[in-house]
């Protein structure tokens, strides 16, 4: 327990170092407005990351989150355009679509036994294609669809200085962390990801555990879609493209192991903030995009190398200490 706390502090420390470096290089970095902006950018990735964290803890992966976002966005646009339903029902329908998409992912993975990667890669194109199918067309051409309902776009705004999406992110992250650490379901997630066979022998319904993780991810992607479209006040069939990899990267940077069994929401929270900070800070260097890409890549590598070196070091020392304790008994 203690050790993982220290590790957390170190990750936070790294984030801080990055921030300090950026604030030295630009006067615009360390302003309240900019920090809020970073938080806002981290929020959608982070919200989806909450679900993806659970999936990755089970040893799975979800590549369809970006497409689920598009599908949900377009569903909401259709509901908005063709019905007079109140906003909250629109949003509920959107989340339902996300849940169904997650359920389908879970179904083909746990019932048809498809490898997670290929399953969600397939649904990634399926959901995107369905989005195209239900896209609102004008003169046969797919158009971006405005979502200008006042009470909807308010979601993209802020209360006081804090954007709603940040609030949602914090609340969902807290709930996610509690589910993960303090409920039976959370424990089974780790069990399934750490040793699937053992989990089966321990009478865990591994299929259900995994399916639920995908459903949660679908719901999270839907929430992400709601906030994104509210901010943009529109949606397109291209919404969320590439989002899946951004989310996975944030989750993995946050300490989740793609092999399963390791990681938590706090890590993802830091990971999302880290990636957003990186993007934001890089923009402030007055250099062209090409160099920005290079620097970003190098920073990611440095950080993960440091993190992994540090983990190894911690493992070694804690083990030595433990053995000494035992020996001195």
């Amino acid at each position, binding site marked *: 327990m203690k050790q993982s706390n220290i590790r957390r502090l170190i990750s936070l420390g790294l984030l801080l170092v990055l921030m300090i470096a950026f604030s030295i290089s630009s006067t615009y970095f360390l302003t309240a407005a900019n920090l809020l902006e970073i938080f806002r950018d981290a929020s959608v990735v982070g919200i989806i990351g909450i679900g993806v964290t659970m999936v990755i803890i089970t040893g799975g992966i979800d590549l369809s989150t970006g497409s689920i976002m598009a599908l949900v966005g377009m569903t909401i646009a259709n509901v908005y355009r063709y019905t007079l339903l109140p906003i909250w029902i629109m949003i509920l329908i959107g989340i339902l679509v996300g849940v169904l998409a997650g359920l389908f992912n879970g179904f083909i993975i746990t019932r048809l*036994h498809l490898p997670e990667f290929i399953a969600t*890669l397939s649904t990634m194109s399926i959901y995107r294609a369905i989005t195209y199918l239900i896209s609102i067309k004008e003169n046969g051409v797919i158009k971006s669809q405005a979502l200008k309902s006042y009470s909807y776009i308010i979601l993209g705004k802020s209360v006081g200085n804090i954007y709603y999406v940040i609030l949602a992110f914090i609340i969902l992250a807290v709930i996610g962390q509690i589910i993960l650490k303090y409920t039976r379901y959370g424990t089974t997630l780790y069990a399934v990801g750490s040793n699937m066979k053992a989990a089966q022998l321990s009478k865990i319904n591994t299929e259900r555990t995994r399916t639920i993780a995908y459903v949660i991810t679908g719901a999270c992607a839907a929430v992400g879609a709601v906030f994104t479209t509210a901010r943009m006040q529109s949606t397109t069939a291209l919404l969320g493209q590439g989002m899946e990899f951004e989310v996975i990267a944030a989750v993995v940077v946050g300490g989740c192991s793609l092999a399963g069994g390791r990681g938590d929401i706090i890590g993802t929270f830091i990971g999302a903030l880290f990636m957003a900070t990186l993007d934001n800070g890089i923009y402030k260097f007055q250099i062209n995009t090409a160099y920005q890409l290079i620097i970003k890549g190098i920073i990611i590598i440095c950080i993960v190398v440091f993190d992994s070196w540090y983990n190894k070091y911690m493992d070694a020392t804690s083990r030595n200490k433990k053995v000494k304790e035992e020996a001195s008994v």
Partner: protein
Amino acid sequence: MIKKIRWEKYSRLFILLLFLVVLTIIRPNSFPTVNNISNVLWSISVVGILTSGSIFVMLLGGIDLSVGSLMGLSAVVTVLTIRHFNYSNQSVLLGIGLALLVGAAAGILHGLIVIKFQVPAFLVTFATQSIFLGISMVLTNNKILSCLEPKLFTDIGLGKIGMFTFPIYFMIIIALISYFVLNKTVLGRYIYAVGGNPQAATISGISNVKITMISYIVSGLTAAIGGVVLASMTQQGMASTGSGYETEVITAAVIGGVSLVGGAGTIQGAIVGAVLVGLLNNGMNLMNVPSTQQGLIKGMVIIVAVAIDVMQKYERKFSIKNLLKKKGEAV
């Protein structure tokens, strides 16, 4: 019993055959023509080349997301060299040599970080993906560099022997080499061993470091070759050449039965996977499926094909009831 083993081993080939038959029946005039088949093969040749190398990394349970942008970089390097030396034949060879160097260097970098620092391959290659893209953009100043000369260069991607273009032969040759290495040599045995159980491999006297390094270098080299071929096919070098190829490679391999956890999968399977995807794309084009809906069909077909394949492995009859049964006993 014998029958069963056969079916399990060749189920992918059966699916492939099924595809061929169905397409021939639906499009008797346009599908089974030499031209069309050669087109299908041409279009998958680069994926085939890449898969032949990336499979080394996948067999170790790693993943190489950077192949796409590495292709871009090697395409750019080749074309820049050729242009710099006024399109001479020697410059083509020099350019290819440099591209291969770049590929190998990238492989060394990946291998080092993955094995020495134990950083997940996903993250390392995710980061280098953007580094390579950035370098290509700097090198090209973000321009398309066209390169229509010399013939030695353009022939790589567009030249023909008989009915088929060169890239098809490259794919076959590289896949064969890969097959040979993986199935006939000690190195191949070691790769499967390290992928299947790294600790046991260590105790058996295998250096995980060496094997990992070699695998990433191979992956880098095939990406470089793929980049050169693609540059020649399109007669140009640009930073975004090859973007998106990483997912195609992974798709082909996974459909072909390569496990992303490592230790399982064959190059034959992966190539069949690539051909399946190529045929699927071709079939949809021939049937004029609108592009926005191709994803739907492609996704569905992949799900069904892989599901049938998985069924085979667990030796279940294909029925709804069996579909819904739990996996439990599968190894």
